[in-house]
């Protein structure tokens, strides 16, 4: 269990503000946020590489705040692997055993087990210079786990990999975590990774936690405009509420139920907005007329911007759907938003 209390780190031009975080034993926790949010700083603070301004860090009940990194029992895996270039694969993996060799035979068995799991046996005596990105990351994982840390920190472990290796390592991470039951704390900027791998997540922005919770809950019920946009809600607007009506810039949206009094925002996923050239109507649908402003090719789908009154909605259309309904820019269309798809916070 990792407990972070009032963690504060002040650097030139950046402050991590009084962070509180509690991670369960054996949990896979992700720390999400954009570049520059301070995610790596949190990891390095837990590992003991950066001095804290204030706050305490406890792992399994032991206060490690003032311990040097080598006495913390916390493993770290970096995005760029950080393998020792002057050592072979096996020498990299066994690097830390010198300092943890209470039972050498047990350690050796454990390393063998890890290398089998990660498919590294055949690479043992290779130089790390000739490994692929995926292989390097597996060596880095084996090296960190070889010394049986109580916590494994992962700093964007998938970001530097080619897309074809990324999925492989992602699966490896999931299997490893289930196999070794060590607490994993991973930093990433990719919500999809967090959704696939972790149980709970914290969203970090400008050195401050915006929301903590189960990943699916954060995904479905973001608590702040930043989180809403981060989890892919492209339509986030401030609004006022009157019973089951939300008013956004003069536009009235019907909600399924009256929101609590402290709500201030409306958010809608772009995939929940229907765009049509035909007249739309239906129960529980908010239908508006609008004009297509822009159609952007996003690769697998198109993002269509539609202006309704003063608001611009962003809708998502598959390529085939767009091809069928043929939406030139400037065209008048109907958009429909199911009231159940409107999220308020």
């Amino acid at each position, binding site marked *: 269990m990792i407990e972070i209390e009032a963690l504060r780190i002040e650097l030139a031009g950046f402050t991590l503000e009084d962070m509180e975080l509690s991670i369960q034993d054996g949990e896979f926790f992700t720390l999400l946020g954009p570049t520059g949010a301070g995610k790596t700083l949190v990891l390095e603070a837990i590992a003991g590489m950066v001095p804290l301004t204030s706050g305490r860090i406890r792992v399994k009940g032991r206060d490690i705040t003032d311990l040097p990194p080598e006495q913390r029992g916390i493993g770290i895996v970096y995005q760029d692997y*950080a393998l020792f270039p002057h050592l072979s694969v096996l020498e990299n993996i066994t690097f830390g055993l010198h300092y943890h060799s209470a039972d050498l035979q047990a350690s050796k068995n454990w390393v063998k087990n890890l290398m089998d799991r990660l498919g590294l046996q055949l690479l043992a005596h290779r130089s790390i210079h000739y490994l692929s990105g995926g292989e390097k990351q597996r060596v880095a994982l084996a090296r960190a786990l070889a010394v049986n*840390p109580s916590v494994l920190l992962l700093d964007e472990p998938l970001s530097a990999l080619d897309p074809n290796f990324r999925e492989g390592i992602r699966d490896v991470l999931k299997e490893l975590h289930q196999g070794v039951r060590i607490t994993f704390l991973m930093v990433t900027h990719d919500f999809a990774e967090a959704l696939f791998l972790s149980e709970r997540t914290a969203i970090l922005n400008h050195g401050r936690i915006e929301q903590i919770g189960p990943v699916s809950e954060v995904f479905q019920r973001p608590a702040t405009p930043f989180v809403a946009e981060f989890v892919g809600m492209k339509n986030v607007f401030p609004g006022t509420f009157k019973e089951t009506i939300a008013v956004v810039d003069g536009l009235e949206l019907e909600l399924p139920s009256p929101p609590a009094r402290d709500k201030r925002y409306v958010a809608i996923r772009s995939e929940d907005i229907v765009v049509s050239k035909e007249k739309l109507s239906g129960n529980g649908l908010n239908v508006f007329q609008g004009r297509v402003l822009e159609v952007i090719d996003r690769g697998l789908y198109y993002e269509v911007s539609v202006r309704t009154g003063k608001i611009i909605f962003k809708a998502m259309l598959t390529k085939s759907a767009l091809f069928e309904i043929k939406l030139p820019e400037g065209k008048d269309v109907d958009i429909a938003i199911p009231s159940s798809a409107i999220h308020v916070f």
Partner: protein
Amino acid sequence: MKKQIDPFLWLTVFCGFVVVAFVLLPLIQMIAEPSFQDLKETIQDPDVRHSIWLSVYTSGLAAFISFTIGTPFAYLLARKDFPGKGFVESIIDLPIMIPHPIVGIAILSLAGRNHWLGNLMQQVGIHIMGTVTGIVTVLTFVGLPFYVNTVKAGFEAIPVRLEHVSRSLGASLTRTFLRVTFPLARRSILIGLIMCCARAISEFGAVVIVAYHPMVAPVMIYERFTAYGLKYSQPVAVWLILVCLVLFLLLRIFSLPKKNQT
């Protein structure tokens, strides 16, 4: 159409030739001038052999001292930020800028009887004036900056994350330095040693003030030049150059056996 070549490119090439010729011509002339007989007679002279040997081993000692005290210090400069770091770094560069005779005079004034430190040193039997100790002191003084700067750059080029990982695996700062940083900086350390040695072996101005005798090779070359002229100084110079070249080559060959490790 013929491809146009920018006149500036011609200028760069021309300047390149000028620089290379400027460096090589005098050296080639000096090496080519003494006859084989001159060279043979010179190296048979015990004084010459003694001077060259003295130059080589005092420079080697200076490099060794620089290695011992310069390596940890270079690591500190490469890895830690502290108040006044810029000031400390410019102090390291001072010996490069100070005119060499002044270095000699400065060291002598500290080591003389009029200074408490000089007094103390003489009481415990350390003499600077006219001794090998004095020569090594001066050579270390002028060579150390080259060693520290080279090795510092080498340490800076090693990703600090490698050290972080090593620490997280249980290695203390010392063990991390010995098992990760030092082996990876080996090449820069070697280049630092060569730079330091080369600088030390070529030192004349400071040495001549601290120790005219025992005579290092550059002082002997100067003495032969002033006393007997060009013809007598050249063969000693050639031998000094040859010995240095062979030593540096050997050092490189023995210290960099594997090419695939970068």
